[in-house]
């Protein structure tokens, strides 16, 4: 029997195991939405407030589960509104299929109403994209899109479907199961042997991992590697949650705002084993200085990442879990007591430095604040500070998925939040998309059925707070923690340190009342100035079943420390603002 292209899309989505899609209707996807209506018992559509929110929600759904996220938008502005979300997913290797409607084939290229060449627009930010002009190719193109999205290093794929292809009729044969990914490539034996030799000969090995460990399901193998070699581990922002934060060998995130101990340990290592990481500039700082003191083994599924940013001494292409597991069998079990002692010493140093930095931050808070600082008036010891906020929330949050926006709060959460399981920390690492968090938290809550916690700032939250409408109307359990400092804190921090305190356009001076805002959207909220108020709010927030905003007022001159200045290196690390 022949069915419409629109029905083929929905049938293929269901066939591919898709239970929830995120999107927004419009003129060129009406047919598709009609099929979503008819099949609403088989596949759930979550309507967002804006297509950008939908794209981040599909991303959050994918990151929280490992499944491919799906977003649907209409042509023209609907499609272009997805671009930031697609680029966010691309930079962080998130499997996503974006489906856009387009004007009928006969109107393409005529600058028709709501026509845009979305395939052209998204070419540099997708793994691949398609425009389907024949309904007979529709089902297989969608299947290929899913296949590409989840194969090897995952990423977003866009499928543009003109309206006449949605209305055209065609035979459809369902597949019994979702497409399987393209076969993985596996590391060459001789490369792994060479790697094993280098590791065995190393006195101070250091394991550095990225997001590839999460998508490659290699957490256990990496921990086993660290244990067998007696090596410490550190990670990039994208690697967070792959290994429990409290793992005795884990030193935390490194890079621009990474932990002191992990950054120094890496620099003192004689061998770095990089697994599923891509050495972004935020992770390395000055590239010429970065790998000066150690040899580098780089293992990644994506051959183009090898030697792209940092030249390695041994580059190994292959599936990360397979490589790590095979490497494990080749390694000698070895104690490295001197190196372990040095690591322990670095941890102690870090503790001292952190305490000193926090104390001096308390001392100077607001003393030279030039912005209208919301926190003025309370004595320093009674105020909320970022780490206290994170610590208190983590006491109540249980196994919630954590999402963040971008800026200071993101780095504080990355440094401090105690993560336990992979896929519980959703953050825009590569693109650094302010406004990512609301959509991501919604997508994660919809995917897992569990509560999401969003750490955000008053700047980031302002970018996509319209999605409060989505979380409220969907009845999703969501706790939004706003670190409200009245400024764009991260840029302000740079202005303080490198631009003679010229606070150009970073002092928000807004009169937004987030408690009233929550009420307007139908959510609950509390404003907190003190730890005690925060505890009370958290108790309430984590027992309510809907959306709850906790507006935490903090000082505008809180800093994210440590900091490697942009383009700087471990030699320039700032651990305290004097």
């Amino acid at each position, binding site marked *: 029997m022949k069915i419409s292209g629109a029905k083929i899309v929905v049938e293929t989505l269901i066939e591919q195991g898709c239970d929830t899609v995120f999107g927004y209707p419009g003129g060129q996807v009406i047919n598709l939405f009609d099929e979503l209506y008819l099949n609403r018992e088989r596949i759930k559509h979550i309507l967002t407030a804006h297509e950008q929110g939908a794209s981040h929600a599909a991303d959050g759904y994918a990151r929280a589960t490992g499944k491919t996220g799906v977003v649907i938008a209409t042509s023209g502005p609907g499609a272009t509104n997805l671009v930031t979300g697609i680029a966010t997913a691309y930079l962080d290797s998130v499997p996503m299929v974006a489906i856009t409607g387009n004007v009928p084939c006969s109107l393409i290229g005529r600058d028709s109403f709501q026509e845009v060449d979305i395939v052209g627009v998204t*070419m540099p930010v997708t793994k*691949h994209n398609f425009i389907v002009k024949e309904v007979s190719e529709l089902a297989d193109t969608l299947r290929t899109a899913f296949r*590409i999205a989840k194969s090897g290093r995952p990423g977003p794929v866009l499928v543009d479907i003109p309206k006449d292809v949605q209305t055209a009729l065609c035979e459809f044969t369902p597949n019994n199961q979702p497409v399987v990914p393209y076969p993985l490539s596996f590391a060459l034996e001789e490369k792994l042997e060479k790697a094993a030799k280098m590791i065995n000969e190393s006195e101070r090995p250091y394991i550095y991992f990225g997001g590839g460990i999460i998508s490659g399901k290699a957490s256990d193998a990496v921990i086993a590697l660290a244990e067998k070699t007696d090596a410490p581990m550190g990670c990039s922002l994208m690697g967070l949650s792959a290994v429990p934060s409290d793992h005795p060998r884990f030193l935390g995130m490194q890079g621009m705002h990474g932990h002191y101990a992990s950054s120094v340990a890496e620099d003192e290592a004689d061998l770095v084993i990089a697994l599923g990481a891509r050495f972004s500039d935020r992770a390395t700082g000055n590239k010429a200085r970065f790998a000066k003191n150690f040899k580098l083994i780089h293992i990644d599924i994506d*051959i*183009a990442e090898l030697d792209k940013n940092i030249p390695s001494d041994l580059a190994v292409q292959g599936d990360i879990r397979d490589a790590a597991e095979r490497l494990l069998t080749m390694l000698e079990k070895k104690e490295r007591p001197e190196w372990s002692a040095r690591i322990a010493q670095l941890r102690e140093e870090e503790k001292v430095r952190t305490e000193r930095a926090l104390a001096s931050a308390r001392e100077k808070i607001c003393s030279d604040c030039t912005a209208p600082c919301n926190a003025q008036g309370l004595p320093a010891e009674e105020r909320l500070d970022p780490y206290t906020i994170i610590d208190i929330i983590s006491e109540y949050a249980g196994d919630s998925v954590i999402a963040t926006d971008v800026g200071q709060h993101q780095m504080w959460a990355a440094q401090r939040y105690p993560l336990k399981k992979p896929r519980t920390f959703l953050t825009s690492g590569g693109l650094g998309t302010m406004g990512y968090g609301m959509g991501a938290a919604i997508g994660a809550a919809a995917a897992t059925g569990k509560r999401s916690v969003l750490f955000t700032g008053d700047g980031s939250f302002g970018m996509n707070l319209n999605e409060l409408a989505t979380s409220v109307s969907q009845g999703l359990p969501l706790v939004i923690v706003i670190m409200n400092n009245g400024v764009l804190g991260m840029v302000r921090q740079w202005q303080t340190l490198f631009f003679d305190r010229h606070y150009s356009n970073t002092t928000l001076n807004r009169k937004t009342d987030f408690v009233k805002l929550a009420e307007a959207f139908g959510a609950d909220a509390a404003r907190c100035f003190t730890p005690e108020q925060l505890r009370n709010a958290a108790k309430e927030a984590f027992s309510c079943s809907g959306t709850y905003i906790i507006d935490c007022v903090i000082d505008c001159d809180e800093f994210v420390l440590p900091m490697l200045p942009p383009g700087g290196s471990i030699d320039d690390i700032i651990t305290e603002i004097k």
Partner: protein
Amino acid sequence: MNDQYVIAVLVSNISGVLSRVSGMFTRRGFNIDSLTVGETESGGFSRITIAFHGDEDIKDKILRQLQKLHDVREVEVLDRKDTVIRELLLIKVRNKTESRQDIMTAVEIFRSKIVDYSPTALVCELTGETSKIDAFIELLKPYGIMEMCRTGIVAIERGENCLKTAK
């Protein structure tokens, strides 16, 4: 060490594939000396020949990025020693009594051909390696080049070796 590399890229014959390939060069900041694209013996594939300058590191980066593109089926660096490399030039020169004989001599020595003749202009056609084309253009400059176009490099390996699709 900046050498010129010539690579052959076998791609699926699908609309947009040229944008994907050239877009990769733009986005990653690699420069192209020349790029040609045309049909192959098999209808499903086109062959793109790209020449670029760079060191070995740049070359490897370009190859790896190309291999990642979904529509790219095969990429190969052609070894200049074992490769026939050709370019086609069409060049229009002023047809003046005082220079005509010199031009004819150059055409003969370079094994070029005059493919159009009018009272005021001559069009010459020349096939050869890039260096030969460059030398010919240089030679004709004094006589007044009115316009010219060249195809960029096409290249094929000598002997039995062929660019095949593995994937």
